[in-house]
Protein backbone atom coordinates (compact mmCIF):
# COMPACT_ATOMS: atom_id res chain seq x y z
CA UNK A 1 0.00 0.00 0.00
CA UNK A 2 1.48 3.35 -0.84
CA UNK A 3 -0.86 5.38 1.30
CA UNK A 4 -1.49 3.27 4.38
CA UNK A 5 -3.55 4.43 7.29
CA UNK A 6 -0.77 3.60 9.72
CA UNK A 7 2.84 3.85 8.68
CA UNK A 8 4.86 1.40 10.74
CA UNK A 9 8.15 3.08 9.83
CA UNK A 10 7.00 6.18 11.64
CA UNK A 11 6.00 4.13 14.67
CA UNK A 12 9.39 2.47 14.68
CA UNK A 13 11.01 5.88 14.50
CA UNK A 14 8.95 7.05 17.42
CA UNK A 15 9.96 4.04 19.41
CA UNK A 16 13.60 4.77 18.70
CA UNK A 17 13.17 8.34 19.90
CA UNK A 18 11.73 7.27 23.19
CA UNK A 19 14.28 4.59 23.89
CA UNK A 20 13.13 1.42 22.19
CA UNK A 21 10.82 0.44 24.99
CA UNK A 22 7.64 -1.21 23.66
CA UNK A 23 5.83 -0.53 26.91
CA UNK A 24 6.54 3.16 26.62
CA UNK A 25 5.29 3.11 23.06
CA UNK A 26 2.11 1.38 24.15
CA UNK A 27 1.61 4.05 26.79
CA UNK A 28 2.15 6.78 24.23
CA UNK A 29 -0.30 5.29 21.76
CA UNK A 30 -2.87 4.96 24.48
CA UNK A 31 -2.37 8.59 25.36
CA UNK A 32 -2.83 9.56 21.74
CA UNK A 33 -6.00 7.56 21.49
CA UNK A 34 -7.32 9.50 24.48
CA UNK A 35 -6.23 12.94 23.36
CA UNK A 36 -6.92 12.84 19.69
CA UNK A 37 -10.69 12.53 19.91
CA UNK A 38 -10.70 15.64 22.09
CA UNK A 39 -8.70 17.43 19.46
CA UNK A 40 -11.15 16.34 16.79
CA UNK A 41 -13.97 17.76 18.88
CA UNK A 42 -12.01 20.98 19.35
CA UNK A 43 -11.60 21.21 15.58
CA UNK A 44 -15.27 20.68 15.02
CA UNK A 45 -16.21 23.27 17.61
CA UNK A 46 -13.77 25.82 16.27
CA UNK A 47 -15.04 25.27 12.74
CA UNK A 48 -18.62 25.63 13.86
CA UNK A 49 -17.90 28.93 15.56
CA UNK A 50 -15.54 30.02 12.79
CA UNK A 51 -12.78 30.51 15.34
CA UNK A 52 -9.89 30.47 12.88
CA UNK A 53 -7.19 30.86 15.45
CA UNK A 54 -8.18 27.85 17.48
CA UNK A 55 -8.97 25.93 14.36
CA UNK A 56 -5.46 26.55 13.11
CA UNK A 57 -3.88 25.60 16.37
CA UNK A 58 -5.91 22.45 16.97
CA UNK A 59 -5.41 21.12 13.51
CA UNK A 60 -1.72 21.92 13.73
CA UNK A 61 -1.43 19.97 16.93
CA UNK A 62 -3.31 16.99 15.60
CA UNK A 63 -1.13 17.10 12.52
CA UNK A 64 2.03 16.85 14.54
CA UNK A 65 0.72 13.96 16.58
CA UNK A 66 -0.56 12.23 13.50
CA UNK A 67 2.92 12.36 12.01
CA UNK A 68 4.44 10.99 15.18
CA UNK A 69 2.09 8.06 15.27
CA UNK A 70 2.37 7.19 11.62
CA UNK A 71 -0.99 8.43 10.33
CA UNK A 72 0.12 10.29 7.19
CA UNK A 73 -3.29 10.66 5.63
CA UNK A 74 -4.67 12.19 8.80
CA UNK A 75 -1.65 14.44 8.96
CA UNK A 76 -2.16 15.57 5.38
CA UNK A 77 -5.76 16.59 5.95
CA UNK A 78 -4.89 18.37 9.16
CA UNK A 79 -2.19 20.32 7.37
CA UNK A 80 -4.62 21.35 4.68
CA UNK A 81 -7.08 22.57 7.27
CA UNK A 82 -4.34 24.34 9.19
CA UNK A 83 -3.18 26.35 6.21
CA UNK A 84 -6.70 26.98 5.13
CA UNK A 85 -7.60 28.40 8.49
CA UNK A 86 -4.42 30.40 8.62
CA UNK A 87 -5.00 31.88 5.21
CA UNK A 88 -8.49 32.86 6.16
CA UNK A 89 -10.51 30.58 3.87
CA UNK A 90 -13.85 30.10 5.43
CA UNK A 91 -14.96 26.71 4.20
CA UNK A 92 -13.61 24.26 6.68
CA UNK A 93 -16.56 21.94 6.81
CA UNK A 94 -15.42 19.40 4.24
CA UNK A 95 -11.93 19.19 5.66
CA UNK A 96 -13.30 18.82 9.15
CA UNK A 97 -15.37 15.86 8.06
CA UNK A 98 -12.31 14.32 6.43
CA UNK A 99 -10.36 14.71 9.60
CA UNK A 100 -13.02 12.96 11.63
CA UNK A 101 -13.12 10.15 9.13
CA UNK A 102 -9.37 9.73 8.89
CA UNK A 103 -8.99 9.76 12.62
CA UNK A 104 -11.66 7.09 12.96
CA UNK A 105 -9.66 4.83 10.67
CA UNK A 106 -6.28 5.60 12.19
CA UNK A 107 -7.62 5.15 15.68
CA UNK A 108 -9.05 1.76 14.78
CA UNK A 109 -5.77 0.54 13.29
CA UNK A 110 -3.80 1.66 16.30
CA UNK A 111 -6.22 -0.07 18.66
CA UNK A 112 -5.84 -3.29 16.67
CA UNK A 113 -2.07 -2.99 16.97
CA UNK A 114 -2.36 -2.57 20.72
CA UNK A 115 -4.65 -5.54 21.06
CA UNK A 116 -2.32 -7.74 19.08
CA UNK A 117 0.15 -7.71 21.94
CA UNK A 118 3.66 -6.57 21.13
CA UNK A 119 2.97 -3.43 19.17
CA UNK A 120 5.42 -3.82 16.37
CA UNK A 121 6.33 -6.95 14.47
Amino acid at each position, binding site marked *: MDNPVIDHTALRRLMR*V*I*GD*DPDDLRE*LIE*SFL*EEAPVLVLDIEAAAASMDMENLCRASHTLK*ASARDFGAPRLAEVCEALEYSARDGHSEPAALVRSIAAEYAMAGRELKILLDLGPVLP
Partner: protein
Amino acid sequence: MASEAVLIVDDHSTNRLKMAAAVRNLGYEAAVVGGGREALDHLRARPCDAVLLDILMPGMDGFDVLRALKEDEALRDIPVIVVSALDDDTASVVRAIELGAEDFLPKDFDPVILRARLGTSLQKKRFRDQEREFRRLVGKLTEAAETLESQSLRPERLALDDIVSRQDPLGRLGRVFQSMAEEIYERERRLRRNIRMARGSLLVIAVGVSWGIIAPLSRMASGLDSDPLGLAVWTNLIGAAACLGVAAARGRLPPPTWPVLRFCLLWGIITGVLERLILFSVTGHVQATTVALICSLEGFMVFVVAAALRIEKASLRRLGGLLLGLLGAVLVIKAPGTLSGVDEAFWLLMTASLPLLFSIEGLFVAARRPENVDVTALTGLALLASFAIILPVAAAAGELLHLGPAVGRLEVVVLLIALASVLAIVLWLLLVDVAGAVFASQTAYSITIAGIVWSMLLLDERLSPLAWGALALMLLGLYFVEPQASAADDEFRLPVRLRRAKSDLVAQARGEPHAR
Protein backbone atom coordinates in the same frame (compact mmCIF):
# COMPACT_ATOMS: atom_id res chain seq x y z
CA MET B 1 26.72 13.31 40.70
CA ALA B 2 22.92 13.43 40.40
CA SER B 3 21.69 13.45 36.84
CA GLU B 4 20.52 16.72 35.47
CA ALA B 5 16.82 17.52 35.45
CA VAL B 6 14.89 18.77 32.45
CA LEU B 7 11.47 20.40 32.69
CA ILE B 8 9.08 19.74 29.79
CA VAL B 9 6.39 22.31 29.22
CA ASP B 10 3.61 21.33 26.81
CA ASP B 11 -0.16 21.53 27.02
CA HIS B 12 -0.70 18.14 25.36
CA SER B 13 -0.18 15.08 27.45
CA THR B 14 0.93 12.87 24.56
CA ASN B 15 3.68 15.34 23.74
CA ARG B 16 4.73 15.49 27.34
CA LEU B 17 4.92 11.72 27.53
CA LYS B 18 6.92 11.52 24.36
CA MET B 19 9.43 14.20 25.33
CA ALA B 20 9.81 12.86 28.85
CA ALA B 21 10.57 9.39 27.50
CA ALA B 22 13.05 10.78 25.02
CA VAL B 23 14.78 12.86 27.69
CA ARG B 24 14.99 9.99 30.13
CA ASN B 25 16.36 7.79 27.40
CA LEU B 26 19.29 10.20 27.20
CA GLY B 27 19.99 9.70 30.88
CA TYR B 28 18.47 12.84 32.29
CA GLU B 29 15.63 13.23 34.74
CA ALA B 30 12.39 14.59 33.31
CA ALA B 31 9.60 16.57 34.93
CA VAL B 32 6.45 17.60 33.09
CA VAL B 33 3.98 20.45 33.43
CA GLY B 34 1.01 21.37 31.31
CA GLY B 35 1.27 25.15 31.12
CA GLY B 36 3.32 28.28 31.54
CA ARG B 37 2.09 29.15 35.00
CA GLU B 38 2.79 25.66 36.32
CA ALA B 39 6.21 25.81 34.69
CA LEU B 40 7.14 28.95 36.62
CA ASP B 41 5.78 27.57 39.89
CA HIS B 42 7.66 24.32 39.37
CA LEU B 43 10.94 26.07 38.62
CA ARG B 44 10.66 28.33 41.60
CA ALA B 45 10.11 25.36 43.88
CA ARG B 46 12.56 22.98 42.23
CA PRO B 47 14.98 24.63 39.86
CA CYS B 48 15.86 22.46 36.87
CA ASP B 49 18.95 22.38 34.73
CA ALA B 50 17.14 22.96 31.42
CA VAL B 51 13.65 23.58 30.03
CA LEU B 52 12.03 22.19 26.86
CA LEU B 53 9.34 24.72 26.13
CA ASP B 54 6.44 24.44 23.73
CA ILE B 55 5.78 27.82 22.13
CA LEU B 56 2.16 27.37 21.19
CA MET B 57 0.17 27.04 24.38
CA PRO B 58 -3.17 28.53 25.39
CA GLY B 59 -3.13 31.14 28.10
CA MET B 60 0.49 31.81 28.96
CA ASP B 61 2.36 30.85 25.81
CA GLY B 62 6.03 30.10 25.37
CA PHE B 63 6.97 33.75 24.81
CA ASP B 64 5.30 34.81 28.04
CA VAL B 65 7.12 32.07 29.86
CA LEU B 66 10.44 33.17 28.40
CA ARG B 67 9.85 36.75 29.41
CA ALA B 68 8.92 35.74 32.94
CA LEU B 69 11.96 33.50 33.26
CA LYS B 70 14.43 36.13 32.16
CA GLU B 71 12.98 38.65 34.56
CA ASP B 72 13.43 36.33 37.52
CA GLU B 73 16.96 36.56 38.82
CA ALA B 74 16.89 33.08 40.28
CA LEU B 75 15.65 31.49 37.08
CA ARG B 76 17.21 33.55 34.36
CA ASP B 77 20.26 31.36 33.98
CA ILE B 78 18.31 28.15 33.25
CA PRO B 79 18.74 27.34 29.55
CA VAL B 80 15.49 27.11 27.58
CA ILE B 81 15.10 25.16 24.33
CA VAL B 82 11.89 26.04 22.52
CA VAL B 83 10.12 23.22 20.78
CA SER B 84 8.66 24.46 17.58
CA ALA B 85 6.14 22.55 15.59
CA LEU B 86 5.63 25.28 13.07
CA ASP B 87 7.21 24.07 9.89
CA ASP B 88 8.18 27.29 8.31
CA ASP B 89 7.92 29.59 11.23
CA THR B 90 11.44 30.90 11.61
CA ALA B 91 9.93 34.13 12.88
CA SER B 92 8.66 32.48 16.06
CA VAL B 93 11.96 30.76 16.69
CA VAL B 94 13.85 33.98 16.14
CA ARG B 95 11.53 35.82 18.44
CA ALA B 96 12.00 33.15 21.08
CA ILE B 97 15.75 33.34 20.82
CA GLU B 98 15.61 37.11 21.08
CA LEU B 99 13.57 36.68 24.23
CA GLY B 100 16.37 34.56 25.66
CA ALA B 101 15.87 31.01 24.44
CA GLU B 102 19.12 29.16 24.11
CA ASP B 103 18.21 27.03 21.10
CA PHE B 104 15.25 25.47 19.30
CA LEU B 105 14.17 21.93 18.48
CA PRO B 106 11.64 20.80 15.94
CA LYS B 107 8.78 18.77 17.30
CA ASP B 108 9.60 15.79 15.16
CA PHE B 109 13.18 15.76 16.30
CA ASP B 110 15.69 13.03 15.89
CA PRO B 111 17.01 11.83 19.26
CA VAL B 112 20.55 12.56 18.15
CA ILE B 113 19.64 16.19 17.67
CA LEU B 114 17.87 16.26 21.04
CA ARG B 115 20.98 14.88 22.66
CA ALA B 116 23.22 17.43 20.97
CA ARG B 117 21.05 20.43 21.77
CA LEU B 118 20.32 19.43 25.35
CA GLY B 119 23.91 18.43 25.90
CA THR B 120 25.23 21.78 24.74
CA SER B 121 22.79 23.80 26.83
CA LEU B 122 23.40 21.77 29.94
CA GLN B 123 27.13 22.00 29.53
CA LYS B 124 26.95 25.77 29.16
CA LYS B 125 24.91 25.95 32.32
CA ARG B 126 27.34 23.74 34.15
CA PHE B 127 30.21 26.00 33.19
CA ARG B 128 28.30 29.11 34.21
CA ASP B 129 27.47 27.59 37.59
CA GLN B 130 31.04 26.49 38.21
CA GLU B 131 32.35 29.90 37.28
CA ARG B 132 29.92 31.63 39.56
CA GLU B 133 30.80 29.33 42.44
CA PHE B 134 34.47 29.83 41.76
CA ARG B 135 34.12 33.59 41.80
CA ARG B 136 32.16 33.43 45.00
CA LEU B 137 34.87 31.41 46.74
CA VAL B 138 37.65 33.62 45.42
CA GLY B 139 35.69 36.53 46.81
CA LYS B 140 35.50 34.77 50.13
CA LEU B 141 39.21 34.12 50.19
CA THR B 142 39.95 37.73 49.30
CA GLU B 143 37.62 38.88 52.03
CA ALA B 144 39.38 36.65 54.53
CA ALA B 145 42.72 38.15 53.54
CA GLU B 146 41.36 41.64 53.99
CA THR B 147 39.92 40.70 57.35
CA LEU B 148 43.26 39.43 58.57
CA GLU B 149 44.91 42.64 57.46
CA SER B 150 42.46 45.08 58.95
CA GLN B 151 41.53 43.35 62.15
CA SER B 152 43.02 40.39 63.79
CA LEU B 153 40.64 37.47 63.72
CA ARG B 154 41.59 34.06 64.89
CA PRO B 155 42.23 31.94 61.79
CA GLU B 156 39.60 29.37 62.66
CA ARG B 157 36.99 32.12 62.53
CA LEU B 158 37.64 32.90 58.89
CA ALA B 159 35.13 30.21 57.87
CA LEU B 160 36.99 28.90 54.86
CA ASP B 161 35.81 25.30 55.19
CA ASP B 162 34.07 25.08 51.85
CA ILE B 163 37.17 26.40 50.12
CA VAL B 164 39.80 24.30 51.81
CA SER B 165 37.89 21.10 51.24
CA ARG B 166 37.98 21.50 47.48
CA GLN B 167 40.33 19.31 45.51
CA ASP B 168 41.20 21.90 42.89
CA PRO B 169 43.80 24.69 42.76
CA LEU B 170 41.47 27.03 44.60
CA GLY B 171 41.25 24.51 47.42
CA ARG B 172 44.99 24.26 47.57
CA LEU B 173 45.31 28.03 47.67
CA GLY B 174 42.79 28.13 50.46
CA ARG B 175 44.66 25.52 52.47
CA VAL B 176 47.98 27.28 52.06
CA PHE B 177 46.39 30.58 53.04
CA GLN B 178 44.78 29.09 56.10
CA SER B 179 47.89 27.35 57.36
CA MET B 180 49.93 30.49 56.83
CA ALA B 181 47.38 32.54 58.71
CA GLU B 182 47.45 30.05 61.54
CA GLU B 183 51.22 30.04 61.65
CA ILE B 184 51.44 33.81 61.72
CA TYR B 185 48.80 33.98 64.40
CA GLU B 186 50.68 31.47 66.54
CA ARG B 187 53.97 33.23 66.15
CA GLU B 188 52.38 36.56 66.91
CA ARG B 189 50.71 35.16 69.97
CA ARG B 190 53.92 33.67 71.29
CA LEU B 191 55.79 36.89 70.62
CA ARG B 192 53.23 38.98 72.41
CA ARG B 193 53.18 36.62 75.33
CA ASN B 194 56.95 36.71 75.61
CA ILE B 195 57.02 40.47 75.49
CA ARG B 196 54.26 40.65 78.01
CA MET B 197 56.00 38.22 80.29
CA ALA B 198 59.31 40.04 79.98
CA ARG B 199 57.81 43.48 80.51
CA GLY B 200 55.48 42.15 83.11
CA SER B 201 58.22 40.39 85.01
CA LEU B 202 60.35 43.51 85.10
CA LEU B 203 57.40 45.49 86.33
CA VAL B 204 56.55 42.90 88.97
CA ILE B 205 60.07 43.18 90.32
CA ALA B 206 60.01 46.97 90.09
CA VAL B 207 56.69 47.16 91.93
CA GLY B 208 58.00 44.83 94.63
CA VAL B 209 61.21 46.80 95.11
CA SER B 210 59.43 50.17 95.28
CA TRP B 211 56.68 49.10 97.57
CA GLY B 212 58.89 46.90 99.71
CA ILE B 213 61.05 49.82 100.80
CA ILE B 214 58.23 51.94 102.19
CA ALA B 215 57.59 50.06 105.43
CA PRO B 216 61.25 50.02 106.53
CA LEU B 217 61.61 53.68 105.56
CA SER B 218 58.63 54.71 107.62
CA ARG B 219 59.99 52.72 110.56
CA MET B 220 63.18 54.72 110.16
CA ALA B 221 61.16 57.90 110.07
CA SER B 222 59.35 57.04 113.26
CA GLY B 223 62.73 56.37 114.79
CA LEU B 224 63.65 59.94 113.84
CA ASP B 225 60.75 61.32 115.82
CA SER B 226 58.34 62.05 113.11
CA ASP B 227 54.61 61.65 113.59
CA PRO B 228 52.18 59.91 111.29
CA LEU B 229 50.06 62.94 110.46
CA GLY B 230 52.97 65.17 109.64
CA LEU B 231 54.62 62.41 107.64
CA ALA B 232 51.44 61.83 105.70
CA VAL B 233 51.08 65.54 104.90
CA TRP B 234 54.58 65.77 103.50
CA THR B 235 54.65 62.51 101.58
CA ASN B 236 51.32 63.27 99.96
CA LEU B 237 52.38 66.77 99.02
CA ILE B 238 55.67 65.72 97.51
CA GLY B 239 54.04 62.80 95.73
CA ALA B 240 51.28 64.98 94.31
CA ALA B 241 53.76 67.59 93.14
CA ALA B 242 55.98 65.01 91.46
CA CYS B 243 53.12 63.29 89.67
CA LEU B 244 51.31 66.39 88.55
CA GLY B 245 54.56 67.96 87.47
CA VAL B 246 55.42 64.98 85.29
CA ALA B 247 51.90 64.77 83.90
CA ALA B 248 51.84 68.48 83.10
CA ALA B 249 55.24 68.27 81.43
CA ARG B 250 53.93 65.51 79.17
CA GLY B 251 50.74 67.41 78.50
CA ARG B 252 48.64 64.67 80.03
CA LEU B 253 46.62 66.55 82.61
CA PRO B 254 43.05 65.34 82.45
CA PRO B 255 40.07 67.66 82.20
CA PRO B 256 38.72 68.15 85.70
CA THR B 257 35.42 66.41 85.10
CA TRP B 258 33.33 65.32 88.02
CA PRO B 259 33.81 61.56 87.52
CA VAL B 260 37.58 61.99 87.48
CA LEU B 261 37.57 64.24 90.52
CA ARG B 262 35.22 61.99 92.43
CA PHE B 263 37.36 58.96 91.73
CA CYS B 264 40.56 60.72 92.82
CA LEU B 265 38.91 61.98 95.97
CA LEU B 266 37.71 58.55 97.04
CA TRP B 267 40.92 56.88 96.03
CA GLY B 268 42.87 59.55 97.86
CA ILE B 269 40.94 58.87 101.05
CA ILE B 270 41.69 55.18 100.88
CA THR B 271 45.30 55.29 99.84
CA GLY B 272 46.65 58.66 100.90
CA VAL B 273 44.77 59.06 104.13
CA LEU B 274 43.75 55.76 105.68
CA GLU B 275 46.47 53.44 104.40
CA ARG B 276 49.25 55.93 104.91
CA LEU B 277 48.25 56.97 108.41
CA ILE B 278 47.83 53.40 109.54
CA LEU B 279 51.11 52.31 107.97
CA PHE B 280 53.04 55.19 109.50
CA SER B 281 51.44 54.45 112.85
CA VAL B 282 52.05 50.71 113.00
CA THR B 283 55.65 50.91 111.82
CA GLY B 284 56.34 52.77 114.99
CA HIS B 285 55.39 49.69 116.94
CA VAL B 286 55.79 46.65 114.69
CA GLN B 287 58.81 45.26 112.94
CA ALA B 288 58.92 46.01 109.24
CA THR B 289 59.38 42.35 108.37
CA THR B 290 56.25 41.52 110.30
CA VAL B 291 54.39 44.24 108.46
CA ALA B 292 55.53 42.75 105.17
CA LEU B 293 54.40 39.27 106.18
CA ILE B 294 51.02 40.44 107.41
CA CYS B 295 50.41 42.52 104.29
CA SER B 296 50.76 39.44 102.14
CA LEU B 297 47.43 38.37 103.67
CA GLU B 298 45.78 40.59 101.11
CA GLY B 299 46.07 37.83 98.56
CA PHE B 300 44.06 35.53 100.78
CA MET B 301 41.55 38.14 101.86
CA VAL B 302 40.52 38.98 98.35
CA PHE B 303 40.14 35.31 97.51
CA VAL B 304 37.88 34.80 100.54
CA VAL B 305 35.67 37.72 99.59
CA ALA B 306 35.48 36.57 95.99
CA ALA B 307 34.64 32.99 96.96
CA ALA B 308 31.99 34.19 99.42
CA LEU B 309 30.46 36.36 96.70
CA ARG B 310 30.79 33.44 94.32
CA ILE B 311 32.79 35.50 91.87
CA GLU B 312 35.54 32.93 92.10
CA LYS B 313 35.56 29.18 92.45
CA ALA B 314 36.88 27.82 95.71
CA SER B 315 38.72 24.77 94.48
CA LEU B 316 40.37 22.38 96.90
CA ARG B 317 43.77 23.62 95.83
CA ARG B 318 42.94 27.22 96.59
CA LEU B 319 41.33 26.42 99.93
CA GLY B 320 44.48 24.53 100.78
CA GLY B 321 46.47 27.61 99.87
CA LEU B 322 44.28 29.68 102.13
CA LEU B 323 44.91 27.30 105.01
CA LEU B 324 48.65 27.56 104.48
CA GLY B 325 48.37 31.34 104.54
CA LEU B 326 46.44 31.27 107.79
CA LEU B 327 48.99 28.92 109.27
CA GLY B 328 51.71 31.32 108.24
CA ALA B 329 49.85 34.21 109.84
CA VAL B 330 49.58 32.26 113.09
CA LEU B 331 53.31 31.63 113.01
CA VAL B 332 53.98 35.32 112.44
CA ILE B 333 52.01 36.21 115.48
CA LYS B 334 53.70 33.55 117.54
CA ALA B 335 57.19 34.47 116.36
CA PRO B 336 59.19 35.78 119.31
CA GLY B 337 60.63 39.26 119.05
CA THR B 338 57.84 40.51 116.89
CA LEU B 339 56.91 42.89 119.58
CA SER B 340 56.25 42.84 123.23
CA GLY B 341 53.78 44.33 125.58
CA VAL B 342 50.08 44.54 126.11
CA ASP B 343 49.62 46.53 122.94
CA GLU B 344 50.63 43.46 120.97
CA ALA B 345 47.15 42.46 119.95
CA PHE B 346 46.09 46.01 119.14
CA TRP B 347 48.97 46.79 116.83
CA LEU B 348 48.78 43.44 115.09
CA LEU B 349 45.13 44.07 114.44
CA MET B 350 45.91 47.52 113.10
CA THR B 351 48.53 46.04 110.84
CA ALA B 352 46.02 43.47 109.61
CA SER B 353 43.70 46.28 108.57
CA LEU B 354 46.25 47.22 105.92
CA PRO B 355 45.75 44.16 103.73
CA LEU B 356 42.02 44.69 104.09
CA LEU B 357 42.33 48.28 102.91
CA PHE B 358 44.55 47.16 100.04
CA SER B 359 41.89 44.70 98.89
CA ILE B 360 39.20 47.33 99.02
CA GLU B 361 41.43 49.76 97.17
CA GLY B 362 42.16 47.15 94.51
CA LEU B 363 38.49 46.42 93.91
CA PHE B 364 37.67 50.09 93.85
CA VAL B 365 40.38 51.01 91.36
CA ALA B 366 39.53 48.10 89.07
CA ALA B 367 35.87 49.02 89.03
CA ARG B 368 36.01 52.77 88.91
CA ARG B 369 39.25 53.89 87.31
CA PRO B 370 38.37 56.37 84.56
CA GLU B 371 39.37 55.16 81.12
CA ASN B 372 41.85 57.04 79.02
CA VAL B 373 43.21 59.15 81.86
CA ASP B 374 46.95 59.22 82.37
CA VAL B 375 47.95 57.12 85.40
CA THR B 376 50.49 59.64 86.65
CA ALA B 377 47.93 62.41 86.59
CA LEU B 378 45.35 60.28 88.39
CA THR B 379 47.83 59.37 91.11
CA GLY B 380 48.83 62.99 91.48
CA LEU B 381 45.27 64.18 91.88
CA ALA B 382 44.51 61.47 94.43
CA LEU B 383 47.56 62.40 96.50
CA LEU B 384 46.63 66.05 96.22
CA ALA B 385 43.19 65.27 97.57
CA SER B 386 44.68 63.31 100.50
CA PHE B 387 47.04 66.17 101.21
CA ALA B 388 44.15 68.60 101.30
CA ILE B 389 42.24 66.40 103.72
CA ILE B 390 45.07 65.66 106.15
CA LEU B 391 46.56 69.14 106.25
CA PRO B 392 43.87 70.78 108.40
CA VAL B 393 43.76 67.74 110.68
CA ALA B 394 47.49 67.78 111.19
CA ALA B 395 47.47 71.52 111.76
CA ALA B 396 44.68 71.23 114.31
CA ALA B 397 46.56 68.43 116.12
CA GLY B 398 49.70 70.51 116.08
CA GLU B 399 51.57 67.78 114.29
CA LEU B 400 52.81 69.58 111.24
CA LEU B 401 56.26 68.25 110.63
CA HIS B 402 58.87 70.93 110.15
CA LEU B 403 61.28 69.93 107.47
CA GLY B 404 64.21 71.80 106.05
CA PRO B 405 65.75 73.99 104.93
CA ALA B 406 68.76 71.82 105.68
CA VAL B 407 68.47 68.36 104.14
CA GLY B 408 68.96 65.97 107.04
CA ARG B 409 68.21 62.28 107.44
CA LEU B 410 64.52 62.87 108.05
CA GLU B 411 64.20 64.99 104.94
CA VAL B 412 65.80 62.30 102.86
CA VAL B 413 63.62 59.59 104.32
CA VAL B 414 60.46 61.61 103.73
CA LEU B 415 61.44 62.27 100.14
CA LEU B 416 62.23 58.62 99.54
CA ILE B 417 58.92 57.49 101.02
CA ALA B 418 57.04 59.92 98.80
CA LEU B 419 58.84 58.93 95.63
CA ALA B 420 58.80 55.19 96.34
CA SER B 421 55.07 55.15 96.97
CA VAL B 422 54.35 57.16 93.83
CA LEU B 423 56.55 54.84 91.83
CA ALA B 424 54.90 51.77 93.30
CA ILE B 425 51.38 52.98 92.46
CA VAL B 426 52.16 54.12 88.93
CA LEU B 427 54.16 51.01 88.08
CA TRP B 428 51.43 48.77 89.37
CA LEU B 429 48.77 50.46 87.23
CA LEU B 430 51.07 50.09 84.23
CA LEU B 431 51.64 46.44 85.04
CA VAL B 432 47.92 45.73 85.01
CA ASP B 433 47.61 47.48 81.65
CA VAL B 434 50.52 45.58 80.12
CA ALA B 435 50.05 42.09 81.45
CA GLY B 436 46.59 41.91 82.94
CA ALA B 437 45.43 41.69 86.50
CA VAL B 438 46.03 37.97 86.77
CA PHE B 439 49.71 38.35 85.92
CA ALA B 440 49.92 41.39 88.17
CA SER B 441 48.89 39.28 91.11
CA GLN B 442 52.44 37.98 91.21
CA THR B 443 53.40 41.21 92.94
CA ALA B 444 52.23 39.41 96.06
CA TYR B 445 55.50 37.53 96.09
CA SER B 446 57.76 40.36 95.01
CA ILE B 447 56.37 42.80 97.56
CA THR B 448 56.60 40.37 100.45
CA ILE B 449 60.10 39.25 99.59
CA ALA B 450 61.37 42.74 98.77
CA GLY B 451 59.85 44.09 101.99
CA ILE B 452 61.74 41.54 104.03
CA VAL B 453 64.99 42.08 102.16
CA TRP B 454 64.80 45.88 102.49
CA SER B 455 64.05 45.55 106.19
CA MET B 456 67.06 43.36 106.66
CA LEU B 457 69.24 45.75 104.68
CA LEU B 458 68.08 49.08 106.07
CA LEU B 459 67.13 48.17 109.59
CA ASP B 460 69.28 45.18 110.29
CA GLU B 461 66.19 43.21 111.23
CA ARG B 462 66.56 39.50 111.27
CA LEU B 463 63.96 36.81 110.81
CA SER B 464 63.62 34.17 113.42
CA PRO B 465 63.33 30.58 112.25
CA LEU B 466 59.61 30.74 112.93
CA ALA B 467 59.34 33.85 110.79
CA TRP B 468 61.23 32.11 107.95
CA GLY B 469 58.79 29.27 108.30
CA ALA B 470 55.92 31.73 108.15
CA LEU B 471 57.38 33.29 105.00
CA ALA B 472 57.70 29.92 103.32
CA LEU B 473 54.10 29.01 104.19
CA MET B 474 52.77 32.36 102.96
CA LEU B 475 54.57 32.12 99.65
CA LEU B 476 53.40 28.57 99.13
CA GLY B 477 49.87 29.55 100.10
CA LEU B 478 49.88 32.44 97.65
CA TYR B 479 51.01 30.07 94.92
CA PHE B 480 48.07 27.75 95.51
CA VAL B 481 45.53 30.52 95.80
CA GLU B 482 46.48 32.07 92.49
CA PRO B 483 44.15 31.56 89.55
CA GLN B 484 45.41 29.88 86.37
CA ALA B 485 46.17 31.97 83.29
CA SER B 486 42.99 32.51 81.31
CA ALA B 487 42.24 31.85 77.67
CA ALA B 488 41.55 35.56 77.39
CA ASP B 489 45.29 35.81 76.98
CA ASP B 490 44.83 34.50 73.46
CA GLU B 491 42.54 37.26 72.31
CA PHE B 492 44.31 40.15 70.81
CA ARG B 493 44.06 42.65 68.04
CA LEU B 494 46.76 44.07 65.93
CA PRO B 495 48.21 46.40 67.16
CA VAL B 496 48.09 45.06 70.68
CA ARG B 497 46.77 47.21 73.43
CA LEU B 498 45.43 45.01 76.19
CA ARG B 499 42.61 47.06 77.44
CA ARG B 500 41.62 46.95 81.03
CA ALA B 501 38.02 45.90 81.19
CA LYS B 502 35.39 45.31 83.79
CA SER B 503 36.69 41.74 83.82
CA ASP B 504 39.51 43.12 85.88
CA LEU B 505 37.05 43.54 88.67
CA VAL B 506 36.70 39.81 88.66
CA ALA B 507 40.43 39.32 88.26
CA GLN B 508 41.05 41.60 91.19
CA ALA B 509 38.55 39.70 93.22
CA ARG B 510 40.52 36.60 92.52
CA GLY B 511 43.19 37.83 94.83
CA GLU B 512 45.83 40.02 93.38
CA PRO B 513 47.41 42.32 95.92
CA HIS B 514 48.82 45.42 94.37
CA ALA B 515 51.03 48.36 95.06
CA ARG B 516 49.79 51.05 97.35
